[in-house]
């Protein structure tokens, strides 16, 4: 806006320069004109001087013919309008006129340009003796012709001034345009980056969806098969068991493995948002308060827990699964801080107008934010982006299933909430759950 202000310094400077150029041109032209006029006057004076010197003898000895010859010689100069020779008695003895230029009775002239003519009277002397007078009248160059003579110069100067003005104006317009273009370009770049992030989030969401559907379907069928195997094992145990209470070792091992398989399928179902949930209204602050001892126990002595439970709003979720999720995230935090550290658990009521992080299909509204922040090793960007992928883990082989965050993600999404992970190497990790607010209460 300020660029379009009325006072444009370069334009003003250019106008000033152009004005100065014009003024200088006019001054120069006037000076030249003055010089030329002076030269004209001088030239006429010289003519009169020469005539006076030439006719001295003719005037002294009253030789009109000789005087006329000298006067006649002047007619070759077209600028001269009239010339006359007068003797010491004031009688005119010779002269010529051009056009209707009458010679004066008394030779007088002030040697100045007056009414477009110059008149000069000059005494005829010989050795200090005044013998008579000569008179010369010449046409001064008319003002129009003089101006025409400087018209070229004036035109050039004016053109120069114009060029300066036009160049500076277009220059400032150009720089303004360049500034606008740069701003537009920056906005475009930002939009492109935003779009790339959104696309990436969408792609990730689609991937999760696909993987979830596939693994969910398999897990579901697999779970049914496990149930069949389990039922048959129970029947087998009844048949084979001679004394009830004495477990058959092979069957017990098989049943144990089946339990583990069932737990695994449960997790996969959780990730694929297919686990049976019984959501009820709950206040997360209260929930976490009740988990105090459990959390302390789980993270151990080396990790300090700080809770800031500000949230008052109610959310709707499966309480058991939510406790599982919080426990899971606390254990993840502990694993990220092998040498100890601090885990901060925070709840806040927030109104979100836009997605907190790379989230596709976000719905603005009121949310309760549950945040777990650790002071651990953090993750690089690649790891952070893949953190919720099922079976992706950075833990040593056999230590983790790679389903912890996947499950959390599935559960939060199935409950209508969002999961956002913020981390950088050495800066710790922040995991935030945004659960939609509900107007219901537990009564």
């Amino acid at each position, binding site marked *: 806006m300020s660029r379009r202000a009325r006072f444009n310094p370069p334009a003003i400077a250019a106008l000033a320069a152009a004005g100065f150029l014009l003024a200088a041109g006019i001054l120069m032209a006037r000076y030249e004109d003055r010089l030329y006029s002076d030269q004209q006057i001088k030239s006429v004076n010289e003519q009169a001087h020469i005539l006076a010197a030439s006719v001295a003898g*003719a005037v*002294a000895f*009253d030789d009109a013919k000789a005087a006329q010859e000298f006067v006649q010689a002047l007619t070759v100069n077209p600028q001269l309008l009239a010339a006359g020779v007068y003797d010491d008695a004031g009688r005119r003895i010779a002269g010529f006129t051009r056009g209707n230029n009458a010679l004066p009775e008394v030779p007088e002239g002030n040697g100045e340009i007056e009414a477009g003519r110059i008149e000069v009277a000059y005494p005829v002397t010989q050795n200090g*003796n005044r013998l008579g007078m000569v008179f010369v009248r010449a046409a001064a160059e008319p003002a129009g012709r003089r101006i025409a003579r400087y018209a070229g110069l004036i035109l050039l100067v004016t053109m120069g001034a114009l060029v300066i003005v036009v160049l500076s104006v277009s220059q400032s317009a150009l720089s303004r345009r360049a500034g606008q273009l740069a701003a537009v370009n920056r906005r475009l770049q930002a939009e492109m980056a935003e779009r790339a992030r959104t696309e990436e989030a969408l792609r990730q969401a689609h991937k999760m969806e696909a993987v979830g559907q596939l693994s969910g379907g398999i897990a579901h069928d697999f779970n049914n098969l496990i149930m069949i195997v389990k039922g048959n094992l129970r029947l087998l145990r009844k048949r084979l068991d001679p004394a009830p209470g004495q477990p058959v070792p092979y069957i017990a091992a098989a049943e144990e493995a089946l339990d583990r398989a069932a737990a695994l399928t449960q997790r996969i179902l959780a990730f694929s948002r297919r686990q049976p949930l019984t959501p009820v209204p709950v206040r997360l602050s209260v929930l976490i308060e009740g988990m105090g001892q459990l959390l302390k126990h789980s993270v151990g002595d080396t990790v300090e827990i700080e809770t800031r439970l500000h949230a008052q709003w109610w959310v709707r979720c499966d309480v058991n699964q939510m406790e599982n999720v919080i426990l899971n995230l606390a254990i993840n935090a502990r694993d990220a801080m092998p040498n100890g550290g601090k885990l901060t658990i925070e709840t806040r009521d927030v109104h979100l107008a836009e997605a907190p992080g790379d989230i596709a299909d976000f719905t603005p509204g009121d949310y309760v934010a549950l945040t777990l922040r650790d002071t651990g090793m953090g993750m690089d960007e690649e790891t952070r982006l893949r953190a919720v992928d099922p079976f992706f883990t950075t833990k040593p082989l056999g230590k983790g299933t790679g389903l912890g965050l996947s499950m959390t993600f599935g559960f939060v999404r199935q409950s209508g909430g969002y999961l956002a992970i913020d981390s950088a190497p050495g800066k710790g990790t922040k995991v935030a759950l945004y659960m939609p607010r509900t107007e219901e209460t537990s009564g």
Partner: protein
Amino acid sequence: MGRHKGRDLRAAVKTSIACGLAVLAVLMPAGAQPSLENPVKAAYLSKFAPFIEWPAGAFATPTAPLVICVAGADPLGANLDRAVQGQKTGEHPLTVRRLAEPEAAADCHILYTADPLVAGAALEAAAARPVLTVTDSGLPVQGMISFVRVGNNLRFDIDEARAQEARLVISSKLLALARTVRRSPR
């Protein structure tokens, strides 16, 4: 008869007087002609000076008078005195001197003579002196400048060679006006 003779004589006298008056009346304009020529000659004599350059030493002092001498019979009379009145060339006032003896011409700056009787002696005296000699035409000897009548105008011939011998320099402006100029052979 006698009476008749007396009356005839008176008539004759009367007639002759009338005729004489008539002749006088006719002659008067003719007589005015020379009286116009002499003032012009006098004026010319006074105007030659500015066009002539005398050698150094011709004047005793820078303000010494320039002497115009008239040798012999003087036809100009008071005309010359009037023409010279108050005139100067450079710092030199013009004066007129009428010579009793033509030999005194050596001290003049301009010598004029119209008298055939003294002209030879006067020019002789002025010869080899820086004296501008002016004569009327028709004399047995000619000065450096001699007046001639051309139609109704008074002109002059110039003998530049003689002037150079006398170490006088005549301005080209004056030479340009002369009817004829005799130049020295180079």
